[in-house]
C-alpha cells in the first residue's frame, strides 16, 4: 500500500501553479462560505495543496507530518461542528426558528461582498509578489504565501465567530509556515509551529462549544 510520502511524490506534478490555484480556490471558499461542511472540506484540501508546495522546500517526510497535523485539525473541526449542529438542531426542534437552508443558488449580499473582498485581496497578493518577492522561495510559492496570509487576515477581519476566526488564523499560519520553512528548516520550529496550529484549533473548538451552549451569541463589548 503506498504511503503518504509515495502519494505526495506521485502528485508532485501539481506542486506548482495548480497547487497555488487550488489554494486560491480553497481559501476563497473559506472566505465566502459559512457552511461548516464546505469549510472543513476546503480546509482539508487547502492543507493538501500546502503540503504539495512544502515538498518543494523541505523533506517530504516533514511535509507529510505537517499535513497530518493539518488533517487532524480538520478532524477536530469536523467533530466539533457536527456536535454543534446536532445541538442546534435539537434546540430548533424545540420550537426555535429553523435554520435557513439554501433553497436557491443565489449568493447572499454578505457572500457577494466577501467574494469581492477576496478578489481584491488576491489582486493585492499578486501585486505584492511582483513588488516584494520573498527571499529563498520561488515566485509561485511566494504567491501562495501572500494569498494564504491575505485571505486568512480577511477571514479574521470579516467576522467574530470562533470558527471563522480559527479558520482565518490557521490559513494565515499556513501561509507563513510555507515561507518560513525555506528560511528555517529546524525540526524544533516545525514541531512548535505545529503545536501552535493544533492549539489554535483546540481553542477554537472550545469557543465554538461555548457558543452553542450559550445559545449562539458572541459576547460583545
Amino acid at each position, binding site marked *: 500500500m503506498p504511503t503518504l510520502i509515495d502519494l505526495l511524490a506521485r502528485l508532485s506534478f501539481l506542486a506548482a501553479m495548480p497547487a497555488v490555484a487550488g489554494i486560491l480556490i480553497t481559501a476563497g471558499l473559506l472566505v465566502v462560505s459559512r457552511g461548516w461542511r464546505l469549510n472543513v472540506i476546503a480546509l482539508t484540501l487547502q492543507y493538501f495543496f500546502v503540503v504539495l508546495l512544502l515538498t518543494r522546500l523541505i523533506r517530504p517526510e516533514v511535509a507529510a507530518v505537517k499535513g497530518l497535523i493539518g488533517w487532524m485539525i480538520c478532524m477536530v473541526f469536523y467533530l466539533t461542528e457536527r456536535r454543534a449542529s446536532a445541538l442546534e438542531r435539537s434546540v430548533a426542534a424545540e420550537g426555535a426558528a429553523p435554520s435557513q437552508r439554501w433553497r436557491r443558488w443565489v449568493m447572499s449580499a454578505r457572500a457577494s461582498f466577501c467574494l469581492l473582498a477576496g478578489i481584491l485581496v488576491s489582486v493585492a497578493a499578486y501585486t505584492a509578489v511582483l513588488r516584494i518577492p520573498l527571499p529563498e522561495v520561488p515566485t509561485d510559492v511566494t504567491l501562495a504565501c501572500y494569498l494564504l496570509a491575505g485571505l486568512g487576515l480577511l477571514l479574521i477581519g470579516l467576522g467574530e465567530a470562533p470558527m471563522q476566526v480559527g479558520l482565518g488564523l490557521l490559513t*494565515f499560519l499556513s501561509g507563513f509556515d510555507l515561507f518560513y520553512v525555506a528560511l528555517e528548516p529546524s525540526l524544533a520550529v516545525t514541531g512548535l509551529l505545529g503545536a501552535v496550529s493544533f492549539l489554535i484549533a483546540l481553542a477554537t473548538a472550545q*469557543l465554538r462549544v461555548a457558543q452553542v451552549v450559550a445559545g449562539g451569541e458572541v459576547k460583545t463589548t
Partner: protein
Amino acid sequence: MIAGPLLLLTIPLVMAGIVYVLLRWASLSALLAVGTALALGIAVVTLPLDQPVHFWGERQIAMGEAVTFLGRELVLEQADRMAMAFLFLTAAGIFFLAWRVTPHSLLSPMGLGLLSLLSGALLIRPLIYAVLLIEIAAALSIFALQAEGQPPTRGGLRYLTFTTMALPGVLVTNWLLERYVLTPDEVGLLNAAAALLAVSFALLLGVVPFHTWVPAVAGDSVPLAGTFVLTISNGAAWFLLLDFLETYPWLNTHPYFGSLFSTAGLAMVVVGGLLAPAQRRLGALMGYSALVDSGGALVALGMHSRLGLTLALLSLLVRPFGLALMATGLSGLRARNGDDDSFDALRGLGWKAPWSTAVLVFGGLSVAGLPVSAGFTWRWSLCRALMPSSPGAALLLLLAGVGAMAGVWRGLSALLVRPRPPEGNRFPRVTPEGWLTAAVAIVAILACVGVGLFPQVLAPLAARLAETYTFLAP
C-alpha cells in the same frame, strides 16, 4: 542533580494537572496553586545560581545548571531570576484572589500551565523559541479566559489573533540577523529586522492601533484571567523585549529608538485616557486604564536611560496591584448582577456589594496612578523624571490618569445610586459577600496602599533588575 530550569518548567505543569483534578474543592485547589507559585517564586530568588543546594537527603538542586530542550538550551541567568520571581509571585496573588471570586474557574490549573510555558520563554535561547512559547501560551489562555456557560468572548480570540500576527515578524527577524552575520555590508537587513521587531512587539504589547485586544481581554473575559494575561503574559512579552535589546545592542543605538518608544507610549496614553472615561462597562474601562499604564511604561523606556528602564520595570512590578484589585471588584459585582457590568445594570449594587466596590475603587486609583496606591509611586517618579525634558508628556500622563479615574467615578456614581424601597416581594435577593471575602478584600487593599506608602519595598528591586541589563548606560 536536578537542574533548576527543569524544576521551573515541570513543577507547574504537574501541579496544573493535580489542581485541575481537585478543582471541585475550591479551597484545596487554590491552596495548591498559591503554594506552588509562591514556593517557586521564593525558590528562584533565594536559591544560589552558582552552587547546588541539598534537598531531601542526597538530592541536589542546581539552579544555574543548563538544560537542553528540543535541542535548545534553557539556562537561568541573573537577569531572569527576578523576572521569573515576578511572574510566580504575581500569579500567587492572582490565584489567592481567584479563590474567593472565581473559585471553580480554570484559571488556577491553566495559570500554572501558562507559568510553565512563560518560564520556558524567558529561559530558552535563542530568543525566537520564546515567542513560539508565548504564542502557545496565548492559545492556552483562551481556556482560562472563557467563562463557563457564557458566550465565547472576543478577548481571548483577539489576544490570540494579535499574538499570532506578531509571530512572523520575530521569526523572520532571527533569519535576517543570521544573514547579517554572514553579509555584514547589507545594512538594509538590520533596518528590516528593526522594523519587523517594532511591528511584532507593537502587536504583542497592544500599542495603538493594535490595542483593541486589551479592552476586549479585560472586558469580555473572566476578569482575573484577563489580569493574568495583562500582567503576567504581558510581563513576559516585556522581558522578551528587554532580552532582545540586551542581545542585539544595535537596536538600542538605532536613531529612532527613543522617539519610537515615546511616540508609541504617548499614543497609548492619549487613546486610553480619552476612551477610558467614555466607557459604559467596567471591564472595558479596566482595559483602557491598563492601556494608559502600559503606554507610560513605553514612555519611560523611551527616555533611553537607566532611570527610564528602572521606571518601566517598576511599572511592571506595581501594575498587578491595580489590575488585580479592579478585576476582583469586577468579578464580585458581575457575580451579583448576572455577569453584566454595564453602568446601567450596576445601579445601586454598591450598597449590596460594598467590598467589591471598595476594591474596585482602590484598584482604579492604582491603575490610574493616583494617590494613595501602588500605581501612584511609579507615576510620581515618571512624571518627575519627564518634566525636565518632556513636560508635555508628563502633563498628558497626569490627564490620562484623571481620564481613567473619571471612568471609575462614573461607575461609582452608578453603584452608589440609592436603591428604591422594594415593591412587594419583587426585590431580587442578593447574597451578602461574607466575612471571608471581606477579609481577602481588606488584605488586598492594604497591600496596595502599603506599597503606595512604602514603595521602598519594590523600588530597589526594580533598580536592581535594571542593573542586570547593560544595554543602557546609567
